[in-house]
């Protein structure tokens, strides 16, 4: 049975209450560190940080409307080998889902982690966040939370939420050990901490928080938000599908790609240790370029752009969780997330798979059935 507890909010300060909660987690005997987004003291930016000294939690900001990178990759680094102690990791829904995919690919384990998943109120892309936060990092998070939780939305001072977040139908961290709820709660008084796994329940028990029922309003608020997001998502799917419906259209869509491969670096589920596109395989002979150019009269340089993107789709579209870090990382503002999510929807549907959802379900390309897919076989 899932256990639900209340995190009391004092002086209407949500952030402080969360910090206190994290502090109490870090002070538990078997928790050796906590990974949480932190306002860096040297500059007004938010980065994930691994904290062992509770004093540093004063700058923790799990609700800052930005995640400069998908934390799944960092947790993967932390759990590659046993470290002999549990680490609590504070992640968003998309980060948890990406992590689930990495664990399936044996690039991390959950043996020594406790995942604390906060409701995600959305995020700006990295550049917009800097504009939004200005010199007042922590204050800006408070303004953001107030605006979103009161239903006024995330478009503040001329910046708006990243498209990935606008079309995200997973605002709640269902894959966490403990889900921390804000949506539909009376956040001036209480936040929710709900254990979703045995591990989460043990942790909640040892914290001794007061047991509470799950708020009925919360369910309705989450459902209506998800419905709204799904509408946006489907509209995005239709538009992107239309905008890339032929090779010529795809070429137009990706025309300003400079093969910097930032999207691959930012992608939490791009799993190869070394990407083939940076190996000698693509370090073509100079005469090869001339040969290609002669054949068609013209080739765009750098070459292999579409090849790169389609290959990436073949590799990771079944694992794509739609976090939007690819778009965030693109220096030329190509809507990469839209393209990959549109393709991911097709490929995940084809294998009846939903990335990051069920840790027990093997990635589609890692298994097979003897009797299946007869539709792709044969020449008749």
């Amino acid at each position, binding site marked *: 049975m899932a256990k639900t507890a209340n995190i009391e909010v004092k002086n209407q300060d949500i952030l402080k209450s969360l910090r206190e909660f994290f502090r109490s987690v870090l002070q538990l005997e078997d928790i050796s560190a906590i990974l949480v987004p932190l306002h860096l003291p040297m500059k007004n930016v938010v980065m994930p940080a691994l904290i062992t000294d509770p004093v540093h939690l004063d700058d923790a900001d799990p609700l800052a409307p930005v995640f400069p990178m998908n934390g799944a990759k960092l947790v993967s680094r932390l759990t590659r080998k046993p470290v002999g102690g549990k680490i609590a990791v504070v992640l968003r829904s998309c980060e948890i889902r990406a992590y689930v995919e990495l664990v399936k690919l044996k690039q991390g384990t959950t043996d020594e982690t406790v995942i604390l998943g906060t409701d995600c109120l959305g995020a700006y892309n990295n550049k917009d966040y800097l504009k939004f936060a200005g010199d007042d990092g922590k204050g800006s998070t408070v303004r953001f939370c107030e605006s979103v939780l009161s239903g006024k939305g995330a478009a503040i001072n001329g910046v708006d939420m990243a498209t990935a977040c606008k079309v995200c139908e997973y605002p709640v961290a269902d894959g966490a050990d403990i889900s921390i709820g804000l949506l539909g709660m009376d956040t001036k008084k209480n936040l929710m901490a709900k254990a979703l796994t045995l591990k989460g329940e043990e942790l909640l028990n040892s914290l001794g928080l007061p047991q509470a029922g799950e708020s009925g309003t919360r369910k309705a608020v989450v459902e209506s938000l998800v419905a709204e997001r799904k509408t946006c998502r489907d509209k995005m799917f239709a538009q992107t599908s239309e905008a890339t419906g032929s*090779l010529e259209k795809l070429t137009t869509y990706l025309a300003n790609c400079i093969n910097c491969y930032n999207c691959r670096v930012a992608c939490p589920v791009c799993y190869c240790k070394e990407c083939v596109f940076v190996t000698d395989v693509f370090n073509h002979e100079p005469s090869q370029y001339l040969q290609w150019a002669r054949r068609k009269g*013209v080739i765009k340089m750098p070459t292999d752009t579409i*090849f790169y993107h389609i*290959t990436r*789709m*073949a590799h990771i*579209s079944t694992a794509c969780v739609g976090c939007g870090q690819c778009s965030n990382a693109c220096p030329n503002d190509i809507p990469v997330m839209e393209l990959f999510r549109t393709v991911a929807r*097709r*490929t995940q549907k084809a294998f009846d798979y939903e990335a990051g959802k069920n840790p027990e379900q093997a990635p*589609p390309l890692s298994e097979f059935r003897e009797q299946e897919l007869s539709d792709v076989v044969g020449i008749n």
Partner: protein
Amino acid sequence: MTDFEPTIIAFVCNWCTYTAADLAGTSRLSYPKNIRLVRVMCTGMVDSQYIIKALLEGADGVLVSGCHPGDCHYINGNYKARRRIKLLREILTQFGFEKERVRLTWIGASDGIQFAENMHKLVNQIKELGPNEAKMKMVI
């Protein structure tokens, strides 16, 4: 379109379909010259990249052909290839490639006649589809 001669890249496994092609040859069966065979050890090793590259370079069709289910020399390579073809078809059709340009079939080592027949059928089908859009365009 009658004078259109398609180029079809066929990745065939060493143990079954390549042997079938060899048998077709030694049996003096003819099959269209549009088929360019690439011998691989197993269909399970045909990386998605080979297929994507072939199509982007202007091949009008790609065939992957190996042992019948249960006959794979490496036990299950052909099952893996089948999943990969399913995946690629989902991706490539989004960008306007007809799914008939990416084909998978099983032709056993003793099926020389079937090999020749299938190649005739395949070439005719691709002729009907017409040339691959990528052949004429600058693909970036």
